[in-house]
Structures are given as structure tokens and as C-alpha cells.
């Protein structure tokens, strides 16, 4: 009986439904407007940044051209002349001398290992125990 009364109190009249629908619609519209405003603001920001980027790219191109021009032969020569430098023709050249190297000749015999036997034995033990640290250092050429 009590629950029936509560249900009766909660029951909305026709206007109540309409108010709810309008309220929901207004919320949706406000939400949409808020989102649209944000997006519009973002698009303005993007446009502004794109414009800024274009200007920066243009400036970068300009700087690159200046840099390249500074290294251009014409500029280098002009700078050199201003510094009092001038291109000179070498008065003499060092004549090359031919060196006879026969690349096809045999390399020759392997060098003999003159390490004493006891040192070799010690090296074997040390290497086995401690691992090879430096093979080259233990080999005489």
C-alpha cells in the first residue's frame, strides 16, 4: 500500500515529461555548442600555427640559401681577396718515386715462437684458470 503511494507521488504529470525532454535537449545542445566552440577555437589555433610554420619554413629557406651562398666559390674567393689571400701556382712539385712492391710474392714462413717452454706452460694454466685475457700479449712475433 505504501509503495503504491510512493509511486503515485513520483508519477509526473505531462508537463513534467515535457520539461525533462526540453532539459535533456538543452543539455545536448549546450554540450554540442561547447564542443563546436572548442573545435572552432582549435581550428583557429591550427590556422595560426600553420601560418607561423610557413613563415618559419620561409625563414629557414632563406637562412639555408645564405649558408649555401657563404660556401659558394664566388663568396669564398671574394672573402679570400678581402683577406689579402691569392691563389698561387706552385713553383715546383715533389716528383713521385716508384716503389717496387710485388703484391703477388709469397708472404714467407711463419715466425718461430721463441717463448720459453715454462712460460708457455704457465700461460696455458693461467689461461685455463682465468680465461684468455690477451692472446696477442702472450704471443711473440
Amino acid at each position, binding site marked *: 500500500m505504501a509503495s503504491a503511494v510512493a509511486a503515485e507521488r513520483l508519477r509526473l504529470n505531462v508537463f513534467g515529461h515535457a520539461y525533462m525532454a526540453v532539459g535533456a535537449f538543452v543539455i545536448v545542445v549546450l554540450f554540442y555548442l561547447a564542443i563546436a566552440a572548442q*573545435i572552432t577555437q582549435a581550428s583557429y589555433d591550427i590556422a595560426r600555427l600553420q601560418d607561423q610554420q610557413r613563415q618559419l619554413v620561409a*625563414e629557414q629557406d*632563406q637562412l639555408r640559401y645564405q649558408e649555401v651562398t657563404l660556401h*659558394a666559390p664566388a663568396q669564398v674567393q671574394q672573402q679570400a681577396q678581402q683577406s689579402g689571400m691569392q691563389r698561387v701556382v706552385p713553383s715546383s712539385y715533389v716528383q713521385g718515386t716508384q716503389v717496387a712492391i710485388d703484391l703477388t710474392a709469397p708472404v714467407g714462413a711463419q715466425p718461430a715462437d721463441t717463448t720459453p717452454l715454462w712460460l708457455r706452460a704457465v700461460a696455458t694454466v693461467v689461461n685455463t684458470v682465468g680465461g684468455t685475457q690477451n692472446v696477442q700479449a702472450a704471443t711473440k712475433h
Partner: protein
Amino acid sequence: MSTRALASRRPGTVDRVGSARLRVLSMLAVALILAGMVWTRLAYWQVAQHGRLAMQAQAQYREFVELPALRGAIFDRNLTQLVVNTTVYSAFVSPDQVAPEDRDRVASGLASVLGVDRATLLSTLQSTAKFAYVQRRFPKAKADQLRAMKLPGVGLQEETQRSYLPGIGSGTTLAANLLGFVDWNGDGRYGLEQYYQKVLAGTNGYISSYRDLANREIVLGSHTHQDPVNGQDLVLSVDASVQYAAEQALAEGVKRDRAESGSVLIMDPQTGGIVAWADYPSYNANDFNHTDAALFKDNVLSYVYEPGSVMKVVTLSGAMNAGAITPTTVINDPGYVKVGGYWIYDWDRRNHGNIDYTYVLEHSLNVGAMQAMLAEGHANFYNYLQAFGLTQKSSIDVAGENFVPPPSVAKMQDSQFATASFGQGIDVNMVQMLAAINVIANGGKYAPPHVVERVGSQLNPLLMQPQRQVVSAATAAQMTQMMQMVVQKGSGWTSRIRGFELDQAGKTGTSQIPVNGQYTQDVWTSFVGFLPAQHPRFTMLVVVRKPNYPGSDRDWTLNDGYMTAEPIWKQIAQAMVVDWHITPDPR
């Protein structure tokens, strides 16, 4: 009565009913016709004209923004950038957007920054025009100044421009005739810019979006987007320092020789890569729109000339390779000979007596060259012309090659063979001629001439192909020695470089210029050579057109290649010896 009356009424009733039905049917028919007309019209607009109307509608609310591809850069062999893309600006004004009280301020502002005439600007602002350019393509610094002024009704339009390195003077840019330029439509014109247009230009992209009635972008509308594909970079075999040295020496030489023009072409003997490509006079590619179009013509590739005695290198090499002669074969040269009814003379018209072919080349004797050609035979001579690449285009990767094919072997007359043996009556361009002489420097192999070594990261396929053997390495070595003798004992003496006197190989060429079938007193002079002779680092050809060397009106031999072209060759070679650290051959 009633029966009669009924009988008399029935037909009338039937008539009325019939006429009513007829009227209804007529109305229906009219309605159908009218509806049909409407439907037909509707079908016309909605079906037949659908495509056009849809496009018109799209044009109203759809915006298509092209995203231009970045044009590829061009580098030299040391990766020095030769061309840079820069942004330039064009200023425009919308007179109807400028209030009358602002006109003075706008005109003064534009005139002070851009240097345009203030009165002209004021008259433009007072006109009813909707749009007018104030100035095209000025640098960013000026654009920044204009932006800061915030002038009403004035706008800036960004455009991309190719900027080239400065050349030997304010009026030229480096390697202008080789590189060409890019016009305001973005199309490469002349030289490499034209030849490699597709590769350099890339493919433009686009953004397509929707706009409202106020031309604002509808952010939530659908967008389509295609990224641009940027153009590829080119890496050339050219050396910017050598190019500059060549342009400088050439300009000085042409002025000294009081010549009409001159050109220099330098090649890497092993690869065929072009190291320098210079023309004088040249032009400023950064200011092509104010340049006489005649200067755009590249004389290296588009100008054909008769090479003169430089051709004797080809003639004697072919004859030696065919086994018809050797450098020591002795002939008798009385100084003249009659061929095909024509008398042909040596340049000095002297009787040289018994001489060998090394002497023939040293002293550039026409009769000797002709005898060598006769010794190997016409067919062999022609085959060697083909093998040296003188009967077909060089096919170098630069736009605008001009080429005059010689007649076929069957159609050539005896006198034509005779004159061709010493380089007259046969037309070549400089690239063909240098590539032919380079065969000797390259051990008998033909290195295909080219300018671009790499496109993007791809190596030029030409560099990976085996080179064609034209003459044997032994023949090339013999000819090299003969060309060394030309420098040491013959007409090449003015090209000698200190320290390399024994290591230079070269040959002069001087030929009269024909006009309307008659040879005139004007000449083309040239010198070709390579250095060091046994291990060449470069092959160079210098051509001077119509020199008028001081004093040559009294002595025409002062216009010879040894006086005009050789000093230019020497000056450039000296610069290369220093820049490239070239040392003489070890001995």
C-alpha cells in the same frame, strides 16, 4: 409522348456523358502532358545534367587546396648545394577594401617598402578594380615589413622560387647554362631543370574540405587529404670549385680574345661524368624574366661546330687501330693534295717532305690526316667515326642537344671523307667531341657522358654498365704519347703547366666558319687535352667562337687555338692541379 420523349432524350444523354468523358480524358491528357513536361525537365536536370550541377554545387561549398610538392635540390660531387628552394612573396591590393581616408597611408607604405611608384599606386587604389598585384616575387624581409604595417586591403601571396648560387659576376649565376631554371609555373626550362623535370618536381598533394556560405571551413565536415610526394635530389658529377674556376678563366679568355663566345667542358675520364660545363656569355638564372632569351641557349650542347684538327686524334687512332699506320710510319707530305677535284692544303702550305705520323699530329698537317684516312679506307674511317660516337647523339642527360648526322657512308663523297679526316665538313657538339677524345684518356673505352651521378639514393645506371671498347689499350697508349708530343714539340706548347710539361696530352683545333656554303675568315678555335697523360684525372675541351685576337687583323694565325683556347685551358688546368692535388706521373 413519354416514350418519344425518352427516345428523343436518350441520345442527348449519351452525348453529354460521352462529351464529359471526353473532357475528362482531355484534361487527363493535358495533365499528363504537363506532368510529362515537368518530369522530362526534372529528368533533364537530375539525370542528364546531374554531373555538371553536382560539380557546380561542389565548387560552391567544397574547397580544394593544392599541397605543392617540394622540388628536389641539386648538389655537386662534394654535396655543395647548387640550388635552394626559397619562399618569395607577391603583394596584392583590393582597392574596394581600402577606405578613401586610408589610401594615402596604404600607397605610402607600399611605396616605401617595395619601391613602387606612389602615384601609380594611388590611381590603382582609386579605381574600381577588385584585385591588383603591386609587386611580384620579393624577399621575405620586405614581406615582414609589410606585415608589420597592417595595411588595410593589402595581402601577401607566398610562392616558391629556385635560388641559384652567385657566379663570376653580379650578372650571372653558377653553371646557369647547365642547370637551366624553373619558370613561374614551376616548370623546368633548359638544362638539367628541364631534363629532370618529372624527377625534381615530384607530385603535388591536396586537401579537400567543405566551406559554409561565409567561406568558413566546416570543421566537422568530411575531409580528404593526399600528401604530396616531394621531388628527388640530384647529385651531379660537377665540382662547384672547378666550375667557378672554369667560368672565370673562360670569361677572361673570351674578353682577351675579343671573341663572340666560348665554352669549356671538363670530364672525368674514367666515368664520363661532367666536372664543369661553362659558357660565356652566360646569364643570371635568379633573374631569368629580365634576361635576353638568346642567352639561355647552351652552346656546349646545342651549338654544333666543325671541330677542325682535334678530329685528327680520331682519324689517326682509327687508322692505327686498324693496323693501317703506326706513329712512326713515314709518308711524304708536299703540303697539298687534290681529292675529288678539290685542292686541299696544310695550314702552312709548306712542303714537309718525309715525315712520320707523330710529326703529322704535332704540326697538325691536313695532308697527313687525309693519307691516314685513305690508308685505312673510307668504310673503316666511317666505322671509327661511329665507334667514337660522332655519328649519333651523345644522349647526355641535359635538355636541348643539337646534332647534325653526317651522310651515310654510301652518300659521302671523296672530298667529304677527305675534309672530315681533319675535322671540316663534319658537325659535332662539344659533348660528342670531348667524349670521343676521352676514349684515348680512358684506355680506348667510351665512357658515356653524363652529369647526374645519383637520383635520390639511386646510382645512375650508366655508371654500372660496361664501357664500350673503341680502340685497343695499346692504340690509346700510342695516341697518348703522340698527344704528349703535341704539347712538348708542337702546337700545344702554350698549354704547358709548370711541373707537368712531360705529362700533358693535348691537341689544338682551328676551323673556318662556313656561311652559305663558303668558308669565311671567322674561325672556331679549340684545345682538348688531359692530365696527367698516363693517369688522367680530367679531360678538358675549350672552344672559342669567332676570336679576334689583338693583332690578328695583321696575322690571322694569332686567332689559332694555341693563342686563344690553350691559355684558357692552361689557366683552368692549373686551378685543378691545386684543387685536386694532382701530381705528375711518377717516373
